[in-house]
């Protein structure tokens, strides 16, 4: 981390601390790196787009550039790769998502209307057909699927599906006040039911029940509206707000800010399950994604997506206490 980054992180931490009395984050964190996979001039990851970790600590990546899903052991050693370029069963044009649940590995493609299903050994099992292109995906503990599906350029809908892909519920996100609104969402399923959404082009995260009822909504980046720009006659958002969402084992929601944030791709805001902002930190370099495993270790990208770095989060309050 260079001097400028250290300074910017300090400024952010100071601002967050100063804002605590006004309901802003009260806790910040030190990141302790404990694993790196890939890197420049290494042939391991070419542009990883999503990561998921199984119960044994094995790490799975979706890699958009070599059209695959890859598995590494808990120490970061490469084990296996599945998939190849194509549109057939087990194939990808640009793999953009992976989620491990129990013995099953789900992976999906950009603009794809299917989800490819593998076992934990990355042996292809079957293809699930989705009702539209898959934008976000997560799995409930009982195996049901929560999928953000887009049928047009507008807002997606959330489909709750059985493990075999059978539809059980559809939750529309359409905005009656702005039916032409364009946006896309990140999604994390709540083990107790319900889910949290983060909007890429709106400064908004929201928690909903499984029926779609709104529980709370927050503006993690500061609430300033995103100005649209005119692209070929279409007014489209010009800045990103929520790049990625993650959930830790305590149910806290981590929000990675986009270029609307002070430090694009680096500012991470932490919300309690009931929507109170409880902390924040700044990544050493921009990431497109945040993810937490069952041991509350943070996975982020570095080097433009050819590297994965894993961190432990140490609250600075705990660090100060140990020094005393």
């Amino acid at each position, binding site marked *: 981390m260079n001097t400028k980054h250290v300074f910017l992180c300090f400024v952010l931490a100071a601002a967050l601390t100063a804002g605590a009395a006004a309901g802003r984050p009260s806790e910040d964190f030190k990141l302790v790196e404990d694993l790196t996979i890939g*890197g*420049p*001039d290494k042939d391991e*990851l*070419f*542009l990883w787009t999503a990561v998921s970790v199984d119960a044994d600590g094995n790490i799975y990546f979706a890699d958009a*550039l*070599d059209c695959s899903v890859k598995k590494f052991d808990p120490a970061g050693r490469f084990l296996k790769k599945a998939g190849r370029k194509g549109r057939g069963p087990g194939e990808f044009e*640009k793999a953009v998502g992976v989620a491990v649940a129990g013995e099953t590995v789900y992976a999906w493609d950009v603009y794809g209307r299917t989800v490819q299903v593998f076992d934990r050994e990355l042996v292809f099992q079957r293809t699930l057909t989705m009702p539209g292109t898959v934008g976000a995906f997560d799995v409930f503990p009982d195996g049901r699927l929560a999928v953000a599906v887009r049928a047009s350029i507008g807002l997606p809908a959330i489909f709750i599906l059985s493990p075999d892909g059978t539809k059980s519920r559809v939750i529309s996100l359409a905005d009656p006040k702005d039916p032409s609104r364009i946006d896309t969402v990140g999604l994390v399923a709540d083990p107790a039911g319900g889910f949290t959404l983060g909007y890429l082009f709106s400064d908004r995260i929201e928690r909903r029940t499984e029926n779609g009822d709104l529980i709370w909504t927050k503006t993690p980046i500061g609430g300033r509206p995103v100005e649209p720009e005119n692209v070929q006659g279409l007014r489209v958002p010009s800045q990103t707000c929520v790049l990625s969402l993650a959930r830790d084992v305590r149910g806290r929601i981590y929000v990675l800010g986009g270029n609307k944030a002070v430090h694009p791709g680096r500012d991470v805001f932490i919300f309690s399950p009931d929507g109170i902002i409880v902390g924040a930190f700044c990544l050493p370099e921009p990431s497109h994604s945040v993810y937490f495993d069952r041991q509350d270790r943070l996975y982020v990208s570095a080097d433009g997506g050819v590297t994965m770095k894993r961190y432990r989060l140490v609250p600075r309050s705990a660090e100060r206490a140990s020094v005393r």
Partner: protein
Amino acid sequence: MQSIKAFLAAFLAAAAVSGLPAAAGESFPGGRFALVLIDVDSLSCSPCSAPLETLCRAVPPSVQEERIIGILTYQDGRTPDPKRAGIVRTKWTGYSRAGGIRIRASVDEAHVFNRMNGEGITVLLLDPSAGIIKRWAPPFPPGAVEAIVRFLLARESPIMEADPCFR
């Protein structure tokens, strides 16, 4: 044109791409070839990288290896950055391997080709005697890919005058 030839010669020599049709010097011995300028950030975008894949499907693998030079450009940075160059090389390795692409490519660390390449790819056809004789950026007009293939396969034969795509 002379300055572009000198520029390309210097780039190719500095890039140390072995076995290329133009090894060094201001002339380009060894026949015609194509430079394909590739914005590496476009590789992760399906619509942006589709023209490159179309071109590579049309050109036989052996011709890709022998007569096409890939130059990987990227937008950020003004000065040579070995780490960034390594990232670009790594992305190209993954992309080309997955797509069966046989073009050999070097990173434009000095950003000399950035102003010639927008977002996506640009194809430059070069002749040892004439320098750059055609430049295309997608979307390719009808017949352009076929004309590129004919150009690369014809090597020394004077096809330009007869080929409407080169007028």
